[in-house]
């Protein structure tokens, strides 16, 4: 087996660069648990790879900072992993070979988080928090239940994405978008309250036309209830304007938010 082990050992470099695929990566991960010298080498090579990353640093779009910080405010953190849980998981992983939840979900790498369900968690936090803050009558509640189901359909869509954007008038828009369902859920925080004769109207905007996408409820505790906007077409942007109560069919004021949506 000596040859085999040396052969495996040569994979430290490819492993450190994430250049192993599927089965080979899993096999090497298992090998790492037994081979301390391999684990040490991988660690050093990963630190080396980090230098390669630093060498290609690039300034991201400035609005990204705002988006990330807004999303952070809505995202619950994972609790620390206790030693017991870590050990249990490691044992379970030994016993059941066939449950990799993500490409990189090898048990050895519990240290690295898995990509799955982040968006769902963040998105759900938005809706749950916002729904609860709304005081409702029974009629509103019934309506809201139907609305919630539609909202949930967007949130649970496999392609659902969480996006945030600053609103010119103040506050932020938080959008969960599903292009597959041609719909999105929009909530806002920090929007200034409007006089009773005015309303915030949401639009699907494309060059040369704007389609009404719904009216925001008046903010409660600085937040508006989730608005389901359906009928999105490819290339649409989201717009927000202040309009006379009841809304209009075309925007009559300059938008305080224009947000482009990823395809």
């Amino acid at each position, binding site marked *: 087996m000596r040859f085999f082990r040396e052969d495996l050992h*040569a*994979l430290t470099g*490819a492993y*450190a*660069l*994430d*250049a*192993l*695929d599927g089965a080979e990566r899993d096999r090497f991960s298992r090998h790492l648990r037994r081979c301390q010298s391999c684990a040490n*080498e991988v660690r*050093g*090579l*990963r*630190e*080396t*790879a*980090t*230098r*390669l*990353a*630093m*060498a*290609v*640093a*690039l*300034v*991201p*779009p*400035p609005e*990204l*900072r705002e988006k*990330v*910080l807004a*999303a*952070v*405010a809505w*995202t*619950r*953190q*994972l*609790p*620390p*992993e206790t*030693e017991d849980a870590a050990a249990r998981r490691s044992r379970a992983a030994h016993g059941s070979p066939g449950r990799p939840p*993500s*490409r*990189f979900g090898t048990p050895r790498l519990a*240290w*690295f*988080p898995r*990509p799955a369900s*982040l*968006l769902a*968690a*963040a998105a759900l936090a938005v809706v749950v928090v916002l729904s609860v803050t709304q005081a409702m009558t029974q009629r509103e509640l019934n309506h809201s239940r139907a609305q919630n189901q539609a909202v949930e359909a967007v949130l649970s869509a496999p392609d659902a994405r969480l996006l945030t954007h600053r609103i010119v008038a103040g506050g932020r828009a938080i959008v969960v978008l599903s292009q597959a369902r041609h719909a999105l859920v929009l909530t806002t925080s920090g929007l200034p309250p409007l006089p009773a004769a005015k309303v915030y109207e949401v639009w699907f905007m494309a060059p040369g036309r704007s389609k009404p996408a719904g009216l925001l409820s008046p903010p409660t505790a600085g937040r508006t209830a989730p608005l389901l906007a359906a009928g999105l077409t490819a*290339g649409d*942007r989201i717009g927000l304007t202040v309009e006379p109560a009841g809304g209009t069919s075309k925007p009559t004021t300059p938008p305080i938010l224009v947000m*482009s949506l*990823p*395809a």
Partner: protein
Amino acid sequence: MSRRDLRVSEPGPRPPQGRDEDLDWLVRHVARGDESAFEAVYDQLCRPVYGLIRKVLRDPAQSEEVTQEVLLEVWRTASRFDPAKGSAITWVMTIAHRRAIDRVRSASAQTLREQKSGSVLAGSTEEVAEVVEARLDAERVRRCLDSLTELQRESIGLAYYGGYTYQQVAGLLDSALGTVKTRIRDGLIRMRDCMGVTW
């Protein structure tokens, strides 16, 4: 120092050491829900994270999206960072690289990449000036890369920046699998020693 020691110890004053130690300290504070610590982490790491993801994915809109996911993931999973297993920056860059690779290797992203290569998305993201941040050690990295053999350099570049598996790299370079595997490893070891990485 074990993970347990770190968890029970008081934060204490911010350590005066270099950037990397500072980042470890910040990430431990992020794990406690400290949003201002997270802002500091963002400011230190958004450029390398975005730069690496752009390098791998190329498409600006997708790269921005993945960068956002990665940084949010850092916030969400900060409590899982274990300084005994590596530096905080490597923890973050590993998440970033894997996320980018996940995109590249999923078939749907592949078609998306192809579709998007011809068209430009509307919006502000593509208007962003692409400025490579001048870092002191970037020059050193390049110098060390120059000290590698061509095959080492190409293999490492295609694997890390290109997001290819070493089998794909072997195909691209028309070399034997075993050769590419070893060139990646010995090239990286040479880089490590050239840059004085101590882990």
